[in-house]
Each structure stands twice: as C-alpha cells, then as structure tokens.
C-alpha cells in the first residue's frame, strides 16, 4: 500500500470527512414503515406479538403478480451432498402451486449457497431480502442458521415458513415469523422416554450416544426434560458423545456404554455415524433396546447397516419413500409426479428431495389460507396463516398433521410412529402412534 509520509494526517482527514457526512440519515436507510387502519391486520399482528409500526411498508399489501421466495442451503462443501437436493424439491412444490393453486401471485424460487455456515446464511438472507425482495423464506437448514437470520426476518417482517431446523431455537414465541418444518427433537426424546416408561415400569439403565452438535445438545436437554417431567424411574448410566466430523467407528464409546450395563440406548449421532454405530454395536455383540434419531429414519441408513439394524426403533412422522409399506402410496406417487413434471432435475429416489417439496408445500398451504382470509395474500397474511396452519401433507403418515396455533402451540409436528426396522421385511414395521398434539411447546 502506498502511503504518504504523514499517514496520521490522512486518517484525520478521512475522519473529518466522515464527521462532515455524518449529519443526515444513514445511506441506504428506509424509514417508511407499515401503517394501516385495517382492523384485521392490527388484530392479527397484536395476537402474534408483532408491532406493524416496526414492519416495512407493504407488509399488509397484496403480493405482486410475481414474487420471489428465498432458500439458503449448502450448495458447496461437505453438507451439500445431503442438502443440495432440497432446492429442486422446493421448486417443484412452488411451480406446481403456480400451475394449479389458482393464487393471484406466481412464486419464483431463488436459492443461495450458505455452505451450512450461519454467518453465510445471514449474508445470503440479507441479499435475498434486500436485493431479490423475497416475500418469504423456506427450507433454511439448521437451527443455528435459522437463529442467525431470525432478527432480519423479524425486522423486515418476512415469513420464514417451514424451516428445516429441529431445535428449540426455531420455535421461539419471540419470533412468530418463523415456523418449524421438521420433526422436532423434543418429540423424538418424548417418544423414547414414554416407550421406555411403558416397557420398563421399574426403570431402565439408559445409555446415550449423542453427536456433539446443535441438535445433539437439544437431544440431551430434551431427554433430561422428559425423564423428569414424566416421573420416569429410569436413569442415564452412560453419556457418550461423538464429533460431527468423526468418521471413525465409535468403538471406545460403544465399549464404554456396553460396560455400563445399560438396557436401553438413546442414539442421536450425525448422518453416516448412525450406520457405523450400529455396525460397531453388532461387532461388539452389544444388543440393548435401541432408539435411533429421526434424522436417520430412512431405509437409506437402516438398509446400509444391514443385519446390525434389525430391531432398531426410530420415530417417523414422514413416509419413507423407499419402504415397501408405502410402495403403492398415492400421496408419494402424486409428489413424485409433481417432482418429475415441475423439477425435471430433481432426484426422485432421494428422501431429502421430498423434504424440500414438503417445506415449500407448507408455504403454499399458508399462502392459500392467507388468500382466503381477511388479511389476503400479503406477507402478514402468510405469517398469520402459517402460525395457524392445520393441514395434512400427502408425505405425512396417517394420523400425523401439521398443526400450529399462534404462539400457544409453536410445534407443528407433535405426533409420530415408533417404528422398528425389520431385515426380513426389508423395511420399517409399523409401530405405535404417539400423539402429543399441543403438549410440546415449552
């Protein structure tokens, strides 16, 4: 850098210039805010704890004929392998809505790469909101990412409908614009604890094997919560963890848990670790009653584990597209047809593609409900509708609905089956349906 011989003078000159310019409002600032006499809008905002005066102008106005919907997801880096297919799934649901839903607004999907890093999610969302003027966000992956952007969404009153974040950070009443879209980890933990309470009334020795991740932390807290709140006689005798990036077989952790004499295992590792954990347990001949995270609840993981997965139980709210049980399912067939027609590049054999469809489908349902309400198809209308949504997706198991009610019931998916993997059947055997509708909001 070429500098003069008196850099201090330059700095002083620069600061002086800054002081001179610092007399008016900030460049790029927009002081206009929403103001309306519409009683319905004011009452809806008040019910959700929102102040319309803090929202930008236009939040109560009908959406334009064409509107952008934003997605941030990992398109590069390691997690891209698992999550990049969310984009085509979401695109298919919105394109299908454009063609068939009869809404006055046509939605266009804009996706940005966030590399699964919350600070990148924040930067990408800022661009989506300010440059692309997205009217809503959906399918943002990861609780940390959602927590990073929620202040922006609140400030601009942009609905974030059906976020792919299972942690409690995505169900905060302070942020009514954000609606969760996955099986919450608290439901997983509740069902595990209830099942153990039923089967071991005198208490069981529980081992936990949990990923050292944001979701893992939630799992640990929620298991403790439900053991205490249900008055369980069971106790945790061994608590092992694993780093998310650890690809080695967890032999030492399995040995420690086995030596603890645990009867039951609550396991929430990350991705492929589900497979290596089950394989290691089989190698060591340890066969506790095993409950595996809903994050691994697909035949992709269980099938890869081979005989080691036989008898392992998992919580499922969504249909497993590759399971024989749903081979002729009309709902899955309809979604597959939509994917094929509206997103020809979509991988229709990948479960995550269908998740992407579900997230955007939820947004479409909220848009439809908003269009039929007094608020109309506006951003406030979508926020209010999404916070009061009650619908059954063709991808949800019968008996499981997406139901929320304002800030009183923040958790959309509160029912699931506890299913068991059977090697002989080549899929999950239907188990008991646990329904905790309206009970999981803290």
């Amino acid at each position, binding site marked *: *850098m*070429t500098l003069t011989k008196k850099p201090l003078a330059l700095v002083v000159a620069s600061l002086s210039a800054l002081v001179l*310019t610092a007399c008016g*409002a900030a460049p*790029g600032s927009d002081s206009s805010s929403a103001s309306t006499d519409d009683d319905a809008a004011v009452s809806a905002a008040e019910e959700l704890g929102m102040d319309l005066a803090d929202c930008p102008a236009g939040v109560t106005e009908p959406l334009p004929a064409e509107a952008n919907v934003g997605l941030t997801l990992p398109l590069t*880096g390691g997690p891209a392998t698992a999550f990049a297919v969310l984009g085509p799934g979401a695109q298919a649901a919105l394109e299908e809505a454009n063609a068939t839903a009869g809404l006055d607004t046509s939605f266009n999907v804009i996706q940005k*790469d966030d590399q699964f890093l919350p600070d990148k999610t924040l930067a990408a969302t800022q661009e989506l909101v300010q440059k692309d003027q997205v009217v809503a966000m959906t399918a943002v992956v990861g609780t*940390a990412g959602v927590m*990073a952007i929620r202040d922006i969404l609140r400030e601009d009153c942009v609905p974030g409908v059906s976020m792919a974040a299972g942690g409690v950070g995505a169900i905060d009443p302070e942020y009514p614009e954000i609606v969760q879209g996955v099986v919450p980890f608290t439901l997983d933990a509740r069902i595990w604890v209830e099942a153990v309470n039923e089967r071991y009334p005198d208490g069981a020795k529980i081992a936990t094997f949990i990923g050292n991740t944001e979701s893992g*932390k939630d799992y640990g807290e929620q298991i403790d919560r439900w053991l205490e709140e249900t008055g369980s006689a069971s106790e945790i005798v061994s608590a092992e963890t694993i780093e998310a990036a650890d690809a080695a077989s967890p032999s030492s952790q399995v040995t420690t848990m086995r030596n603890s004499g645990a009867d039951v295992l609550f396991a929430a590792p990350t991705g492929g670790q589900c497979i290596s954990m089950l394989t290691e347990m089989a190698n060591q001949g340890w066969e506790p009653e095993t409950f595996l995270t809903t994050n691994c609840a697909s035949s992709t993981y269980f099938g890869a584990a081979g005989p080691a997965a036989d008898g392992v139980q998992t919580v499922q709210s969504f249909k497993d597209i590759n399971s024989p049980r749903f081979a002729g399912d009309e709902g899955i067939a309809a979604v597959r047809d939509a994917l094929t027609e509206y997103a020809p590049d979509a991988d229709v054999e990948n479960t995550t593609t269908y998740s992407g469809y579900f997230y955007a489908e939820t947004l479409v349902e909220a848009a439809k409900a908003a269009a039929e309400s007094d608020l109309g198809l506006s951003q406030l209308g979508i926020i209010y509708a999404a916070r009061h949504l009650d619908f059954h997706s063709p991808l949800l198991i019968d008996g499981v609905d997406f139901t929320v009610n304002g800030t009183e019931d923040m958790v959309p998916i509160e029912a699931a089956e506890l299913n068991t993997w059977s090697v002989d059947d080549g899929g999950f055997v239907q188990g008991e349906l646990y329904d905790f509708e309206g009970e999981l909001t803290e």
Partner: protein
Amino acid sequence: MSLPYRIPAGSPLDRGWRLARVAAVVVLVLALPYLVATFQLSQITSALILAVAVVGLNLLSGFAGQISLGHAAFFGIGAYTTGVMTVTYDYGAWTSFVVGMLLCFVVGVAVGLPALRVQGMYLALVTLAVGVLLPSLIRRFDDLTGGSSGLFGMELAPPDTAYFAGRAGETVWMYYVTVGALVLSCLVVWNLMNGRMGRAVVALRDNEAAAIVMGVNRAFVRTVVFGISAAIAGLAGSLFAVSAGVLTPESVSLLLTINLLVAMVLGGRASFWGPVFGGLIIYFVPIWTSDLSQGPISGVLFGALVIALVFLMPGGLTGGLTSLVHRVVVVEPRPPVDLNEDPVPDAVPPDRPEGPGEERVPAGHTATG
C-alpha cells in the same frame, strides 16, 4: 507522448501521483456507502474483515516466509473472546477487542516458539495442530462458548447519531470500523517492515545463518512477528463476531485457514494491497460463481478460477495490476550519486543505511503495493 510515462522518483509529480492514489482510495472508501445497497456494504465489510486476517497472515507467511496453517485459530480466539466477553460477561465490545488481541499475541508467541526450531512443512504441522484443536475446544467448553449451537447476540453499538441509526446505519458503522481496523493493521505491518525489525525479518527469511551472524536476534524477531500476526488475525476475529452476530465452531474451522492462504496468494503475497484484493476475491468469487451456476458446479467454477488466476497472475492480483499500471506510468528511481564526480565527504555517515526521506522497500514489495 509515448507510454509508459516516466516520473522521476521524489519529484513533485511523483508526490502528486502518490497523493492522487491515496486520495482516490479515501474518496472510494467514503463514497461506497452511498454507491451500494446496504447488503452489499455488509458483504464488502465481511470481505474487508477477511482482508484484516490476511494482513496478519501475510506478515507471517508472506514477509517472514513462515507457513501457518493455524491462523483460523487466532481468528477464532479473537472472535470467541469478543463473543464470551460481550455476551456471557457483558463487557464492552472495544474492551473485548483489546483483550482478544492481547490473548492472540500471547498465544501467537507461544505457538511461535517452535518456529525457532522447525521450519517449512514441520512448522506448518505445528500450526495445523492449533487450527484443528480450537473447534474441538469450543465444542468441549460449550457452557462458555455455546458449543455447536453457536454463540449469538454480539454487536458493536454505533454512536448515538442519526447517521448510524437503524440497520442501514449499523452496517455503515461496521463498515467504517472495519476500514479503520484494516488501515491500522496495514500501518502496523508497514511500519514494522520499513524499520529495523522488517530488515531482520527479511534477512531471516532469505538467509537465516547470515542474519544470525550479522547480529539479528532470531528468537525475538520470530516470536514477536508470530505474535503480531496472531494479534491482527484476532482483531479480524473480533470484528467478525460483532459483524455477523453469530459464532459457531465451523466458522473458524481449518477451511478458513485455507481460504486465508488462498486469499494471500491470489491477492499477492508480501505486498500491502494483496490482502485487500485477496479478501475481496475469496469472499465475492464464491458468491458470483454460485449465482452463475446454482448447485455443486459453482464449487468447480471457483476452483477453476483460482487455478486460472494462479497461472495468469503468478504475482497475485497486485502483481497483475502493477504490470498494467507500469504500462502507463513508471516511477523511475533516482540515479545513484557518483561519488568520484561530486564527492561530499561526511554527507552521510557510513553506518547509516539510508538517507532522510528515503524509504527502503522490503523484498517482495511491489512498486504500487
């Protein structure tokens, strides 16, 4: 007028040329908030924060020739010091900046001690261990750091004026703070490299044995340079914490070190403009490639562009731009004084390396850099 236009060094024209360039930079810095949207200013700020970190790395790896694969750790220590102090213990952000830099300096000196005995790839491995260790420590001490769930809520409150009010104002404030930090970091490195320490650094890099024989205190120079480099990276980390408002272990992973190294090389190592260009490249190019081609192919595009830049501009962007400028304007150094023709005894003491007003350009420093 034939090109390149030649300007004698030290002439009024040369001084005017230098001043014009500095004035252009100052005007650009002050005008940017008015020329770009808020989110773009926020992106530029993020890129400049990376540039600050690259300034630190450039001091160590560019000027001093010591490879560090652990600079993400120093960045992370600064970031988490600010995060923990402001969020958990409610200290002011400015205080946390200073503490973070001091902490990084101490850790940098400690990590620099092995540099006295090991060189090249072995030193790289030592620093790599530090880089790998930090994310695990962050996860392990999650009560303090938020672990994998992340640490949220860091901010640097702007002055209470209308100009810095609202989100747009906060973005402008963060931009100016970052520019100030970048200028400060560059000045520190500039002063360091243009003094006795800088000559020692270059001498140690080019011929360690000869430098020691000539009286260079290797232990002092190496460890202090390591410490200052780490402190600058820590300052960048603190800025990152308050700018992003969110910290996770992945933010300071080994990938960040790789990005900083790539930025240093692409910008132009051992140059003063290199880190600025490098920070901008490493931040914006992935965004542009992602916009051009959504999907995993954007990573391939980015990689191809990096390879192309390395081959087309081996001296980095700074080297490339310098060559372009030299096609138009060349500052010619003053011809040496012929002592036989015009002897001036005792005009310059024999033990004085340079005359007043003369600047010694460190090795690797380019004419415009």
